[in-house]
């Protein structure tokens, strides 16, 4: 299911003017605070009627200001996880969780309540009221409420921001499963590059109400400047070759063989691997006897200053590109230059666990 979104809206000084397609899978809205992410999500949910706009989900016109068409929110069958929780204060946690279920057709009730409750760790809270919950607990209940409403599309506005790492690590695979197994399209707002790389089928980078970049996680996250964030990252696309007994999975990418901690996908699946530029070590000679299992060899395609201290070195590994960030001092000492062959050392565990993206639906637009 593809969602086509075109919006134009004005809030005082702030103007939103954008159009993009969200292909099946997870479309991450990425961008600095105040760039319009929540505004877009609200328009898709039907909570904001933009000045002008057209939103079509899988051929169904949800909004068309030109044709004066507007499908009210309760007919859109969405599960919206709000940036600020919005739990119903008069209902206890269980009633909050089940609220959307009353209205969902029986066929749409695919998630089991107990499974979602377990995943979110909110079992002991079921009979409490939202007023008696901690910030993170509220957010988890809000996630559960949206997931249990049996939605055709999920809108998640920074759902994990209030949660600790351990909890994030438990919930992220769930979104992956929704994306892959259940194939519910997801519009996901996030500031965290790790989440983006892991989940995103498509990334839409917003800046001041406009689309600054759109593409696969590989394309957008690699272009640090488009994001206005100081994180340079590469995304390699790899195919799962085999799972080994010691807990490692063997992946094949254009540049060669990679070992990562066990991924959940079946052999043959295509997955995304996010590798932060600062996690790559370069070596002129083939290194020996290191604990790092992943050593890829390639040719330096580009060398560009990144900040005062470091340079970005882009290696061509077959069709793929991998960016490394090294100090200027090393770059000089190693006499790095375009055209040179070079070895990239990537710690096996550096791509684990948050950054192993798992399979995404073939046929995406990127």
């Amino acid at each position, binding site marked *: 299911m593809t969602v086509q979104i075109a919006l134009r809206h004005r809030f005082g000084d702030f103007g939103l003017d954008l159009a993009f397609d969200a292909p099946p899978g997870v479309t991450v809205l990425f961008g600095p605070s105040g760039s319009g992410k929540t505004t877009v999500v609200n328009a898709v*949910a*039907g*909570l904001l009627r933009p000045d002008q706009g057209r939103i079509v989900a899988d051929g169904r016109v949800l909004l068309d200001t030109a044709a004066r068409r507007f499908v*009210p*929110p*309760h007919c*859109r*069958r*969405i*599960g*919206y996880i*709000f940036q*600020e929780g*919005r739990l*119903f*204060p*008069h209902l206890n946690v269980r009633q909050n969780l089940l*609220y*959307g279920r*009353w*209205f*969902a057709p029986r066929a749409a009730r695919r998630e089991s309540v107990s499974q979602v409750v377990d995943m979110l760790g909110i079992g002991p809270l079921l009979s*409490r*009221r*939202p*007023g*008696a*919950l901690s910030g993170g607990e509220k957010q988890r209940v809000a996630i559960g*409420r*949206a997931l249990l*409403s049996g939605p055709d599309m999920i*809108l998640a506005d920074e759902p994990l921001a209030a949660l600790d790492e351990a909890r994030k690590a438990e919930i992220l695979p769930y979104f992956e499963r929704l994306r892959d197994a259940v194939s519910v399209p997801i519009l996901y707002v996030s500031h965290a590059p790790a989440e983006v790389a892991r989940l995103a089928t498509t990334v839409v980078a917003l800046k001041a109400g406009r689309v600054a970049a759109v593409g696969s996680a590989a394309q957008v996250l690699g272009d640090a400047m488009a994001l206005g964030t100081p994180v340079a990252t590469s995304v390699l696309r790899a195919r799962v070759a085999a799972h080994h007994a010691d807990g490692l999975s063997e992946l094949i990418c254009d540049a060669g063989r990679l070992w990562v901690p066990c991924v959940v996908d079946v052999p043959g699946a295509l997955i995304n691997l996010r590798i932060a530029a600062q996690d790559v070590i370069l070596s002129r000679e083939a290194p020996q006897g290191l604990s790092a299992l992943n050593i890829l060899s390639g040719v330096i395609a580009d060398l560009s200053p990144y900040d005062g201290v470091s340079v970005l070195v882009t290696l061509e590994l077959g069709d793929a590109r991998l960016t490394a960030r090294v100090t200027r001092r090393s770059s000089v000492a190693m006499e790095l230059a375009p055209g040179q062959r070079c070895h990239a050392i990537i710690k096996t565990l550096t791509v684990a666990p948050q950054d192993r993206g798992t399979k995404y639906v073939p046929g995406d637009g990127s």
Partner: protein
Amino acid sequence: MPSDWMTWLGPAEWQAVRLSVRVSLWATLASLPLGILTAYALARWNFWGKQLLNGFVHLPLILPPVVTGYLLLLTFGRRGVVGQALDQWFGIVLSFRWTGAALAAAIMAFPLMVRAIRLAIEAVDPKLEAAASTLGASRLWVFATITLPLILPGVIAGAILAFAKAMGEFGATITFVSNIPGQTQTVPSAIYALLQVPGGEGAASRLVIVAVALAMAALLLSEFVARRVARRVAGS
């Protein structure tokens, strides 16, 4: 003791007390749905004539009760436009009946009820209602499952205000349905009658005490219920 207590008021006065309670309860309960609807419309909808409706609702508050009673007589009396229609089509007669007393009380109490409920509705965060709509609840369901429970303390406050007002209503009632013992003689009419004769203060004050006790009991009950509801919402 019990017989003492029973004979403290005469049978006619007990009858007035019973009737007042019945009239006030009916006036409150029967007008509550319309009160909520009106309050909701005034708080949340925009429509032509909204301020007209608002003004109309407040009329009984502004007019001297006698005038309201007289207007009721003109409209709902047996020869009144609405009164005739009600009689012919539904066999409902209001004039000189306790039902008419309830109507008068309901109309006099209506502005108080609507104001209280409206204030409560305006205090509900529309973001919660929006959240419910994204979860698939239609407008009506949102109202029933989110708005209504959240305004419950306000509704209770409005209802009790209306009940108290109905218990004290006199001018419009007596002008509309007169004072027929057992039919339309409410406690205030009885008190009024007693105060009209020299030396009637003693009997009147006994009735006043009963009326106050009843209304206070209702008030305390409503406070209690409203507080429990509010505590539930705040999360114990």
